[in-house]
């Protein structure tokens, strides 16, 4: 096997066109990344001039929304807060179908409840029990985490013990059920607890004028009435967290107390931040799909050139165990492409990130493991796609048809779905069943079930989880390689 591998490696590195092709793949990937990064500008007009205000970053390092109405009291050490949400109402501005008026209504993820929060600093740790507009009682903490409670609950309770917080719910105020217990690592002794109301914008998705879909988010406001509040009697501090002066009146919250009943209205959301409005790290690797076309061409030629020149007969004469030849070829092309992809990604990500930031774009922060997955995953995607292309080349034996087949199954579905010429439903189906599903490995910001988002491939959300999508490509590659080995054994060369 070592001899075979060395033989195939020698074949690869001595063909100047192939080596140049791989260099071209790196160059194209990086240059396209630079091109798109240079063409992406973003600016905001605000009190700080043309610089967009920085997004708050949550305790787990991701960009978050932290904008809501919060009436709070200091909490020193352990403690507990109980409240009943007597009512949750709201208004939605300019909803479909006519987008012409302001109507009463509560969006499904409008939230009203109680919260223990480290401080009023945007992005600080918190845990909250809440009633939602359409998803029953929930316990959420630190922006990303969400546990469902029951639909009947009206009473909410949070109990702090050290840095663990227990959320409980009740329908009648006497029988309590624990929803979840969470740990807010490093929670200071002096924290805040109180009542909160948030109401995320109302998403309407419309068909774009020139294809694709456009998501528009319209302002909403929720108003909650709280009674049986355990902290009544102490002085309250009210904050319209994350609000800014000059914003529409409807987006500003209010807080009123009368005879033990608290009426609070608020807008905004406390939760994870989606792709919308920010630049994502995988944008810097957008050139990879063009690099992939070059890689596919080289990988297909790696086998079809042998047929064209009759070299395949010498190869098979030298090593009559034909299956091994193909495995050795796949290993060589796979490893070479992985290295090439890694080089391209390692250059493109920091370079294009810097250009994007210089153009005033805010790059959404992601964890190191996610960034590693995006970088290594892109290289792995190229490598497995090269193996698939090689297998297709071995099956078809004619370079043009093999190249076109490989590109048609890997690249074309991705282009058609993300460049939004296809309807969203068809796009999602294609990105589940074709090898293009593997591009999911580049998705750095996940889809959150607790946030109403415009989750379509065009925005950068893939229907499959990153590794599941990658597995689809691997399955295709294995299948094609197995078939190619079988046929190579049966057919005359």
């Amino acid at each position, binding site marked *: 096997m070592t001899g075979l591998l060395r033989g195939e490696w020698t074949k690869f590195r001595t063909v100047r066109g192939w080596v140049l092709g791989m260099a071209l793949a790196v160059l194209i990937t990086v240059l396209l990344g630079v091109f798109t990064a240079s063409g992406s500008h*973003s600016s905001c007009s605000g009190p700080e001039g043309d610089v967009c205000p920085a997004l708050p970053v949550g305790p787990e390092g991701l960009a978050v929304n932290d904008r809501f109405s919060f009436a709070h009291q200091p909490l020193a050490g352990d403690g507990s807060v109980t409240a009943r949400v007597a009512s949750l109402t709201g208004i939605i501005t300019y909803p479909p179908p006519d987008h012409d008026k302001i109507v009463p209504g509560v969006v499904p993820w409008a939230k009203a409840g109680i919260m223990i929060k480290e401080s009023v600093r945007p992005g600080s740790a918190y845990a909250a029990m809440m009633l939602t507009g359409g998803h029953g009682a929930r316990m959420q903490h630190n922006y990303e985490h969400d546990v469902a409670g029951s639909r009947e609950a009206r009473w909410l309770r949070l109990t702090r013990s050290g840095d663990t917080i227990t959320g409980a719910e009740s329908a009648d105020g006497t029988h309590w059920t624990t929803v979840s217990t969470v740990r807010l690592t490093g929670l200071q002794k002096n924290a805040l607890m109180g009542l909160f109301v948030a109401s995320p914008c109302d998403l309407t998705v419309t068909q774009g004028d*020139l294809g694709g879909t456009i998501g528009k988010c319209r302002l909403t406001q929720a108003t909650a009435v709280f009674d049986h509040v355990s902290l009544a009697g102490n002085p309250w501090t009210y904050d319209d967290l994350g609000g800014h002066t000059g914003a529409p009146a409807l987006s500003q919250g209010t807080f009123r107390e009368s005879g033990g009943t608290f009426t609070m209205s608020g807008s905004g959301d406390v939760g994870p931040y989606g792709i919308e409005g920010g630049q994502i790290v995988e944008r810097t690797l957008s050139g990879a799909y063009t690099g992939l076309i*070059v890689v596919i*061409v080289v990988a297909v030629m790696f086998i079809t050139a042998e047929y064209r020149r009759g070299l395949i007969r010498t190869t098979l004469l030298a090593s009559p165990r034909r299956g091994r030849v193909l495995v050795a070829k796949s290993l060589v092309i796979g490893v070479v492409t992985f290295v090439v992809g890694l080089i391209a990604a390692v250059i493109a990500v920091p370079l294009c990130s810097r250009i994007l930031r210089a153009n005033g774009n805010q790059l959404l922060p992601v964890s190191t493991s996610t960034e590693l997955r995006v970088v290594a995953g892109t290289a792995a995607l190229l490598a497995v796609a090269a193996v698939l292309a090689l297998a297709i080349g071995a099956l078809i034996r004619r370079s043009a048809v093999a*190249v076109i087949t490989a590109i048609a199954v890997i690249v074309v579905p991705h282009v*058609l779905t993300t*460049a939004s010429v296809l309807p969203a439903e068809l796009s999602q189906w294609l990105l589940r069943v074709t090898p293009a599903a593997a591009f999911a490995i580049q998705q750095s910001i996940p889809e959150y079930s607790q946030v109403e988002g415009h989750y379509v491939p065009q925005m950068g959300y893939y229907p499959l989880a990153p590794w599941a999508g990658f597995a689809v490509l691997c399955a295709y590659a294995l299948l094609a390689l197995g078939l190619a080995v079988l046929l190579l054994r049966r057919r005359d060369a």
Partner: protein
Amino acid sequence: MKREIHAEWTKLRTLPGTGWVLLAIPVLTVALGVAAGAATTCASARCNHDAVKLALTGVQLSQVVVAVLAVLAITGEHTTGLIRTTFTAMPRRFTVLGAKAAVLAGPTLVAAIAGVLGSVLAGRLILPGRGFTPAHGYPLLSLTDGLVLRAAAGSVLYLTLIAVLCLGVAAIVRDSAAAMGVVLGLFYLFPILIHLVSDPDWQRLLFRISPTNAGLAIQSSMNLDLLPIGPWPGLGVLAAWAAAALLAGGLLVRLRDV
């Protein structure tokens, strides 16, 4: 020229794959059109879907098959060495390439007409069931409608021009795998760039110079004033690409050894 056309026609006709590739053009055009139609619903009069464009979505896929046909028509000869015989028998190389383009355009045109007519018919049958009804502002697709006729005839011309463009690229690159890579890169590079670049001025510029985006503007039947380029000028951009590729290919074929 007549002699060259006859020779090229014999070569194309007697290749075993030609028939299958030509058959794949209408089949894939209609198949993707049906899939796109079946996956789309129009819930109200405001759904803003372009029904004509939707029915003709399949062209985006069958252009790939057209590319195979065009690329193989020339690189196949380089692979087998037949090109030397061809140029010995017909030394006017520029004319040979012209004859190839003419011979290729004919069958492509026929296959494209079949595919486009099939797509319009499929759209006529499927789309009303998906909410594209007169009540929502969508009359039944019909070739007597000027916009539909323009989109249909334009799509046929589009596929034919794509064939000529691919032939030109193949004449420049000569290797079939590399030519396929270049051609497909050209097809899909611009749409992706337009999607990724956020600057609207850049987007409009890229749209105007892209062979596929500008070329497919001919399929639009609504929001025409929002298109970065008009339907016929858009097809003109593709024609310019095709002419430039064929000219460059012809010059290189004359200058280079085979």
